[in-house]
């Protein structure tokens, strides 16, 4: 049986198409991307935050995006400036994000809990988040879901989603055809309604109900008319994933 983390990673990996470039950060995104590379998307281009482009690590997973394994079989050993500029110039289609808080429009907070001036908890900060959120065509957000994380109002807007609705990104001057694409939690997969740009349930993991969706959110979540259950991880997916992280650094 797959655990929550494994299910989330496998579901994320399925979202990555062939022949696209994905900007890869540490942890679940790294595992999801390398899993896609090792299953359905052998030509997926991994652009590692640390500077590697096209690396196809073999054997155990590089647990951090700055590790030398992310350069294995790759094209370029660059700098973060290099890979960031690829996103800035519009070369990167997919990116992963996480956060301590998310709101119904997919805006994210990774900066502080509480007031910025006098924070209750200081978080790590944007990292590459603000940029990825601004510049990638489709961002995939992976995070745990509960009422404290799915909030009505962020304590700080680090990485922009759709701001306050369908016009938000254009008004802010962000590139067209960019924005949050999916949110993956332990409960299900969410998209953003084309009309309202509000978070909408698309798929549930088996074992969860529509009630769980709402019970674990401080904002109302619409449910797509044709929502469905997510196909459970195949034996191959699970086996490949576990071979990438044999010590259970991420998936344990």
């Amino acid at each position, binding site marked *: 049986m797959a655990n929550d983390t494994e299910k989330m990673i496998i579901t994320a990996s399925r979202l990555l198409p062939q022949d696209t470039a994905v900007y890869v950060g*540490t942890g679940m995104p790294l595992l999801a991307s390398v899993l896609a590379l090792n299953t359905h998307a052998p030509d997926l281009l991994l652009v590692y935050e640390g500077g590697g482009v096209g690396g196809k690590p073999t054997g155990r997973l590089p647990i951090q995006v700055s590790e030398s394994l992310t350069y294995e079989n790759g094209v370029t050993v660059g*700098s*973060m*400036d290099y890979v960031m500029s690829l996103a800035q110039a519009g070369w990167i289609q997919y990116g992963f994000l996480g956060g301590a808080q998310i709101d119904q429009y997919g805006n994210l907070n990774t900066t502080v809990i509480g007031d910025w*001036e006098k924070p209750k908890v*200081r978080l790590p900060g944007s990292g590459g988040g*603000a*940029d990825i959120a*601004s510049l990638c065509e489709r961002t995939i957000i992976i995070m745990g879901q509960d009422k404290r994380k799915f909030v009505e109002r962020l304590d700080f807007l680090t990485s922009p989603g759709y701001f306050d609705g369908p016009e938000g990104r254009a008004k802010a001057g*962000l590139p067209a055809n960019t924005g949050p694409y999916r949110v993956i939690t332990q409960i299900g997969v969410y998209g953003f309604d084309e009309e309202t740009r509000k978070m909408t349930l698309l798929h549930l993991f088996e074992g969860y109900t529509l009630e769980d969706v709402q019970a674990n959110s401080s904002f109302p979540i619409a449910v797509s008319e044709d929502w469905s259950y997510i196909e459970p991880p195949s034996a191959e997916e699970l086996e490949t994933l576990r071979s990438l992280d044999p010590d259970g650094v991420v998936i344990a």
Partner: protein
Amino acid sequence: MLSKQINLREAASNVSDGALLALGGNALHRSPIAFVHELIRQGKKNLSVIKTAGALDVDLLAAANSLDSVYGGYIGFEMFGLAQNYRKGVQKQEIVAHEHACASVIAGLRASIYGVPFQPINGFQGSELPELTGQVKYVDCPFTGKRTAVVPALRPDYTVIHVNIADEKGNAYIEGAVFEDLIMARAAEKVIVTAEKVISSESWAVRPQVPGFLVESVVLAEQGASPGSCAPFYSIDKKALLDYLKNPEEYLEEVREAGVHVQHTSG
């Protein structure tokens, strides 16, 4: 040409209290930890740090009360958790977080290497980051009229990078990911290189990426990024890192008692 090689103590003693330091490496990788240890041993005060993604380096300076402010994109221990001492320092308002993203730190450094006071940047439209510490403003492009975010030049007093190999002239070679080290080394007033190996400038088998004329001094510091990694020589020392996160005071005590750089490992 005189050799630029000096020892760690001399090199760190050139850094004044209140200095603005750019630290090379990224997160737990190839950061100049031995140099940070020496700064702590020398009881430096009121330092500010520029770093795209900081971890142990920034947190150590926070724990030692040596840190006034950070221009950083991300400060944390990646999958090992939050940077607890930095976090507490900011929460107690003892440390100022000049709110940046990795890319805006880099853009600010890039302004310095091109000798200009600012850089335009794409990707800051909409975040609340900009307004809060004045690190981002807007200008209208005089050619297109487009409202464009710009960040100010970041010009460190010192850049300190840890490299795989250096020579006595300051030429330096990094294996694998260079991170922002090459930009930092050109953006600063002065540059200090610490190195796993110091060789003669006649005996290079690879081509160094940092030309020596940019470098003020070179320091031999074996295991100088430990307990972080320095590929391909050594990986992260997880036990030492977890010990630090559990008991930073004890770690600091060991650093101070050592008196000089020791090859720091948990083993």
